[in-house]
C-alpha cells in the first residue's frame, strides 16, 4: 500500500504542470496608419512594444495557458488587443502569463492597461497612456504627452530632450523621470518621485507621505509647485536661479541654501514661511508642506 504515495504525488504534479505544455504562440499582422491608435489589455505577464519604420503592426503573443484567448481587431486607424480569460477562471501563480510583443509605427498612439503585467515601450513617438496596478512601467518620452501610472509598481520614463508633457501617478510605487523638458505632473501617496526636468515650464508634484526630489533648470517664466503632507520635498535648481519663491510649512523645517532664512508665522505655533526673489525673478516657485521638511538648493 505504501507504494501508492509516490504515484499519488506524481499524479498531482502532472496535473499541475500539464498546462505548461499547452502554451500558445500566436502571430498577427496588419497594415495601419502611421498614427494608429493601439489599445492593449493584458492582466498578467508582460506587454513589450517597440517602434519600427513600417506602417504595420506585428504582434507575437505567447499565452502560457491553453484556455486563454487572444482578441485582435485591426482597422487602419485602430487596433485592439486583449487577452481574455473565459469563464471567470482565476489567475494562478505560474504558467498562466500572457506575453505580448508588438512592433508598431513610430507615431502610434498607445493605450495600455494591465494589472500585474509589466509594460515596456521603446521608440514610440505618439501619445502614450500606460496603466498598471502592480507591474512596472518603462517608457521613453519624445514630444507627445506621456501618462504613466502604477499603483504599486515602479514607473520609469526616460526623456529624450523632447517637450513631452509627462504625467505620473503612484500609490506605494515610485516614479523616476529623467531627461524630460517642459511640463511634468506627478502624484504619489507613499511612494517617491525623482524627476530631472530641463527648462521646467509647468511642474506640479505632490505626495501625501512620500518624498519628492526634483532637479530642475527653470524656464524664464516657469512655474514649479511642490506639495506634501508629511513627505520631504527637495528641490535642486540649476544656477543661475531667477525666481520668486513662496515657501510654507506648518511644522516642517525649511532649508534654503541661498537667499534669506525662513521665519516663524506665529510666536505660538511651529509654522514657518519664506517669500523672496532670487536673482531677477520671473519664474514662480511654490512649495508647501504640513509636517514634511522642505529643502531647496542651487547645485
Amino acid at each position: 500500500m505504501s507504494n501508492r504515495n509516490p504515484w499519488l504525488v506524481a499524479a498531482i504534479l502532472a496535473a499541475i504542470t500539464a498546462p505548461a505544455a499547452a502554451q500558445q504562440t500566436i502571430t498577427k499582422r496588419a497594415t495601419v496608419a502611421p498614427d494608429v491608435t493601439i489599445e492593449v489589455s493584458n492582466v498578467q505577464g508582460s506587454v513589450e512594444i517597440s517602434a519600427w519604420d513600417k506602417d504595420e503592426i506585428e504582434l507575437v503573443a505567447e499565452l502560457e495557458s491553453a484556455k486563454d484567448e487572444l482578441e485582435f481587431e485591426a482597422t487602419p486607424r485602430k487596433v485592439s488587443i486583449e487577452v481574455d480569460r473565459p469563464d471567470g477562471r482565476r489567475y494562478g501563480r505560474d504558467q498562466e502569463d500572457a506575453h505580448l510583443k508588438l512592433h508598431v509605427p513610430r507615431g502610434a498612439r498607445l493605450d495600455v492597461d494591465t494589472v500585474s503585467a509589466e509594460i515596456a515601450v521603446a521608440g514610440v513617438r505618439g501619445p502614450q497612456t500606460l496603466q498598471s496596478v502592480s507591474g512596472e512601467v518603462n517608457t521613453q518620452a519624445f514630444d507627445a504627452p506621456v501618462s504613466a501610472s502604477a499603483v504599486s509598481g515602479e514607473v520609469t520614463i526616460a526623456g529624450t530632450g523632447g517637450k513631452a508633457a509627462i504625467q505620473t501617478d503612484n500609490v506605494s510605487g515610485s516614479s523616476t523621470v529623467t531627461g524630460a523638458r517642459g511640463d511634468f505632473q506627478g502624484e504619489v501617496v507613499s511612494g517617491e518621485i525623482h524627476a530631472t526636468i530641463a527648462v521646467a515650464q509647468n511642474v506640479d508634484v505632490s505626495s501625501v507621505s512620500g518624498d519628492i526630489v526634483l532637479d530642475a533648470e527653470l524656464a524664464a517664466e516657469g512655474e514649479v509647485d511642490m506639495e506634501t503632507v508629511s513627505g520631504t520635498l527637495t528641490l535642486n535648481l540649476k544656477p543661475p536661479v531667477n525666481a520668486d519663491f513662496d515657501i510654507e510649512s506648518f511644522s516642517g523645517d525649511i532649508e534654503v541654501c541661498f537667499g534669506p532664512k525662513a521665519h516663524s508665522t506665529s510666536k505660538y505655533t511651529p509654522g514657518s514661511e519664506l517669500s523672496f526673489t532670487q536673482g531677477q525673478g520671473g519664474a514662480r516657485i511654490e512649495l508647501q508642506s504640513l509636517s514634511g521638511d522642505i529643502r531647496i538648493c542651487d547645485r
Partner: protein
Amino acid sequence: MNTVPFGPRNPPEDPLLAKAAALPKDVAPSRDLWPGIAARIAKAEVAPARPVLRWPLTLAAALLVASVSALLTWSLVRDPQSATPAVIAAAPVPAGDFVPVSYGPNSGLTAKELAARDELFTQFRGAFETLRPETRDAIVKNLAIMQTAADQIDAALARDPASGMLKGMLVGTYKQELQLYSTVVTSHDGLTRRT
C-alpha cells in the same frame, strides 16, 4: 433685551464694528500653548484614527488556513488508508474582506461621487476575485495606504478646513482609488464581457 444694531453703514457709524474695532488686535495667551497642542497632534498621529482594513488579520487567518491545509494534505498523502487526496489551498484575500476607502467628514466628497465610486468598486470586486494572490495582496496593501492617507488628510483638514492643498490631495487620493478600480476592471474587460 439690548441688541446692537448692525447694517450697511460706514464703519465709524456702526456700533458693532466700532466695538469690534476697539477689541485688541492680538491676544497673547497667558502661557505657551504649543507644547500641549504638539503633544496632542503627535498622539493623534501615532494612534490610528480608525481601524484600517482588516488585511493583517485576514493574512494571519489565511496563513492559518494554508498551514492547516498543508498539514492535512501531508497527513493524507502520508497515510496509506486515505483514499481522497487533498489539494493545497491557496491563501487569497477574499473580496468580502476589504472595503473601499472611507473618507472622513472633512473630505467634501459628495454622495454622488461616493456612489459612483461604490458602483465601480462593485465591478472591481468581481475582477479582483480572479487575480493571483500576490496581486490581490498588493491591491489590499495599497488600499490600506490610501485609507491611511485619507485619514491623515482628513485629520489635517479638521485643523485647516480651508486648505486648498489638502483638498486637492484628498481629491487626488479619491482619483487614485478610482483609477485602481478602473485599471483592474478595464484589464478584465474581455473577461467580464464573457461571464
